[in-house]
């Protein structure tokens, strides 16, 4: 698959992999110690260019003890310190199947042009 948004997600996944992290784009593979790349939202600039926003969900191990919190914050810091343009972040709880995982959502921005 190719296209503006697929390429955006692939670029983010590649950047995460370069940091030594495990990006996941299929929710079936979302599990603790991975970073789930959610589907993008965008603002259309022209038919060729999009202002893309993607949520990265850093997933930790339940039930969210101190070691998990430390892990999540370390990963968040690592992503923020990379080339990825993080604009905001907030803690959350991810519902994966019947499990609730401690998580952190990061909003990132990409300019994508075909």
């Amino acid at each position, binding site marked *: 698959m*190719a296209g503006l948004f697929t*390429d955006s997600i692939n670029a983010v996944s590649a950047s995460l992999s370069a940091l030594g992290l495990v990006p996941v784009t299929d929710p079936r593979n979302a599990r603790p110690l991975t970073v789930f790349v959610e589907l993008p939202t965008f603002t259309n600039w022209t038919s060729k260019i999009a202002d893309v926003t993607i949520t990265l969900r850093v997933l930790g191990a339940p039930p969210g003890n101190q070691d998990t919190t430390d892990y999540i914050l370390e990963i968040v810091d690592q992503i923020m310190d990379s*080339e*990825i*343009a993080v604009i905001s972040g907030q803690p959350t709880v991810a519902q994966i199947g019947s499990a609730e995982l401690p998580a952190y959502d990061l909003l990132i921005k*990409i*300019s*994508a*042009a075909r």
Partner: protein
Amino acid sequence: MAIIYQGDATILIGASNISLNCNNVTIELGVETGDATVMGDTGRKMVSTLQTVSVSATVFLEYGASSVEALIYAEVGAGDTTIVVTPSSAAVGVGNPEFTISNCMIATYSPVSTTVGDLSTMTMTATAGTWVRATS
């Protein structure tokens, strides 16, 4: 296809990279023009004369021996400041041209700019000098 992380530009003052203290940089480069119209011409002819430069960056204020505030302070009024700007932090190339501005003037700066509830930032501006665009 161009996939670009937004806000990944780099700005160097001299050899010091202040990108991580900036969230905005704008450069405006051009030339002044002179009238070269001569008798017989049916429209005006213009030629370029001197280069023009304008640099603006929003800088997060930090204080200390090697801080960005101290760096800019040392350049205020010098008139020989070199500023290098690239659109992204990737290697310089055709897709990431490097703009080098030499001998520019930082005439003023705001070493204190603080408001309750806001990050302390200032806008640094530089003018004059010459510029070169490089792709390698």
